[in-house]
Structures are given as structure tokens and as C-alpha cells.
């Protein structure tokens, strides 16, 4: 399993950060516009690396939460399951909050992204 699939992807990590979550993380998305040797990359998009936190004034750090970390942020009553998408053999993850009908709840290809979406949804509903 790719390590990147074990943490929340960059897009969702940025959303989580925007929403103001302030939680410990072992891993980070480290972004920079500076190239090797200190050359500025200019208007190029940010380059992002998943690793431990890289410190530096020109580096933006976004927590890349793992499943375990997300589990600590989510409330009691979260239920997760695996399912086969479209009967095509592709396995996806679904999760729900205080709801037995988990097949109709939040889904994603990886468990980390699935839980991240749940976190964002719960914040939107002001549940957390």
C-alpha cells in the first residue's frame, strides 16, 4: 500500500486546515515554491511533499492526518465498512455517523479520505 494512501490527500487536508482543526499529526504535506538551490519557482504551482514536518520560512505545512489520528478527532458512533463498488471488484470505504445504513453515507477510495470527508461533513453540520 502506498504511504500516500494512508493519509488524507492534499485537497482534503487543505479543507480540514481551512476549517480550523488543531490536532496533532505525525505526517505533513510540505509545500514550497522554492526550487533546489533556493531558486524561486515563481508562479508555478506549489510543490508538495509528504513527509515529517519540514521547517522553513518558505515552506507551508499542512497536517496529513492518518486513519488513527482522524479516529481520535471523530466522535463516538462512527462506523466504517468496506464495499465493492459497482460490483466491479473495486473496493471502497464507507462511513456513517450514528446510522446503521452505512451504504448510503460518505464514501471514498481510501479509508483516510473517507474519514476526512466525514470530519468535514460533521463540522459543516456543527456536530463537532
Amino acid at each position: 500500500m502506498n504511504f500516500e494512501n494512508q493519509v488524507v490527500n492534499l485537497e482534503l487536508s487543505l479543507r480540514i486546515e481551512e476549517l480550523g482543526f488543531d490536532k496533532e499529526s505525525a505526517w505533513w504535506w510540505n509545500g514550497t515554491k522554492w526550487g533546489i538551490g533556493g531558486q524561486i519557482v515563481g508562479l508555478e504551482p506549489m510543490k508538495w511533499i509528504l513527509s515529517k514536518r519540514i521547517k522553513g520560512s518558505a515552506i507551508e505545512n499542512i497536517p496529513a492526518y492518518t486513519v488513527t489520528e482522524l479516529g481520535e478527532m471523530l466522535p463516538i458512533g462512527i462506523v466504517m465498512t468496506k464495499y465493492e463498488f459497482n460490483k466491479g471488484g473495486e473496493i471502497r470505504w464507507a462511513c456513517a455517523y450514528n446510522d446503521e445504513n452505512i451504504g448510503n453515507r460518505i464514501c471514498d477510495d481510501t479509508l483516510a479520505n473517507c474519514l476526512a470527508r466525514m470530519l468535514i461533513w460533521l463540522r459543516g453540520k456543527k456536530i463537532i
Partner: protein
Amino acid sequence: MVKGEKNNMKLEDGVVCLKLSQKMDELGIKGESNFYWVKINDVTDGNKEKWIVTLDIWSSQEIPHEHYKAYSVAELGEMLPRRLDEYADLICEKRKDEMTVYYGGNDGCGEILRCLTEAETEADARAKMLILLKIDKYTSDSKNKWWCKGDNYLDIKLYEEDGGLTNDKKELLKIVMQYVEDGGGDCKIDEVAIEQNIQNLIDDIEVLAIRIESGEFYEEPNDEFC
């Protein structure tokens, strides 16, 4: 302090504990992992032996120390089967004091619970389920013996495998295990409140066996549901 840096989480918190990692290795459970438990001598602490979790940085060469794969929650999620049969899907649930992993569902007549493991961390709960499925292979033929198998059942099986039982206890154990397989399940063992730790469980097998033989807990779970 920046966002996300507060109380930085240790790698150990996100992977299977050492004891279960060793048991998984011993049982030949194989999967991909990005992490290892590695035994080191800590030069900063009197050369004491310590186990630490590290990233899989030795992928192209031999790891120079005793080590075990330290599976993460996500990796264990890949390894666990999606379902045991058409009615029993994998469910992971965050509860008040622990994480629960079980295979269950509804067969149209009622709720089905094939097996359930619990632990303080999600990684350990998932690892215990993998171990349970390894030592007690689930097949469609053995389906009827899978009713609420859980941590007690797993503890006894592992204790038995490790050769920790005397012969007289083994006989008593047979009665208990038969009861579990006949449908009493782990929940009934819980009812006699002996699940706290393995030593209590083994010590109390005699009491439990007598109570089971007296018919105190006997019931037909299948009748109840279909």
C-alpha cells in the same frame, strides 16, 4: 505552536502493538507495511534494549536488527476481508472506550454477529480480528460455529496454542470451547465477567465449565433469530 503540531502523535500510536505484531509474524500473517517494530540498543539510555517503530527504510536490504512488521490501521484494513459471507460484512466502530471490529449484518430474519474483537486502538482491534481469522479459518461449512466469537475465545485459543494449559484444564477448556462453538458465543463468557485478563480466564475455566454443564447459559441462538 502551529496547527497540527500540538502533542505530536507518536508512530507507535498508529500501528499494531509489538505483542500482536509478533503474534501475526509467528502465525505467518503476511501483508505490506510501511512500518517496522525494530529492537535497538539505546545509546542515550545506558545501551538499554528498546523497541521502536520506524518507517520501512530498509526496503532494498536486510534490516540489521530483530524486527516485525508494524501494520497501520489503513494497511490492516486492506488485509481484512470485506465480508465473511453474504450476510456478514466487515464493520469497524468507534465506541466510548474502545474500537470494535466485527463481521455482522442482517440475514432478513435478524441480526447476525459472526465474530467481534475490541481493543483500545483501532490497529489492535483489527489485528486481533486478523489473528482470529487465521487461527480459526472461516468456511461456509463452519459457518454455524461462528457466532459471536470474540476476544475471550481468541485469548483461550492463543493460550492453548502457546502450551500454557495443564491437561485437566485442557479438558475443561473443551467444554467451554464446545459451548462457544455451539452458539453460546463470547458474550456468554463475558456474562460471567472473566474477560479481564487471560490468567483470570484460565483460572475460572473450571467454574465456567461447571456452570455451562449445568445448563445455566444454554440457549439455541439460531432459534431465536430464524
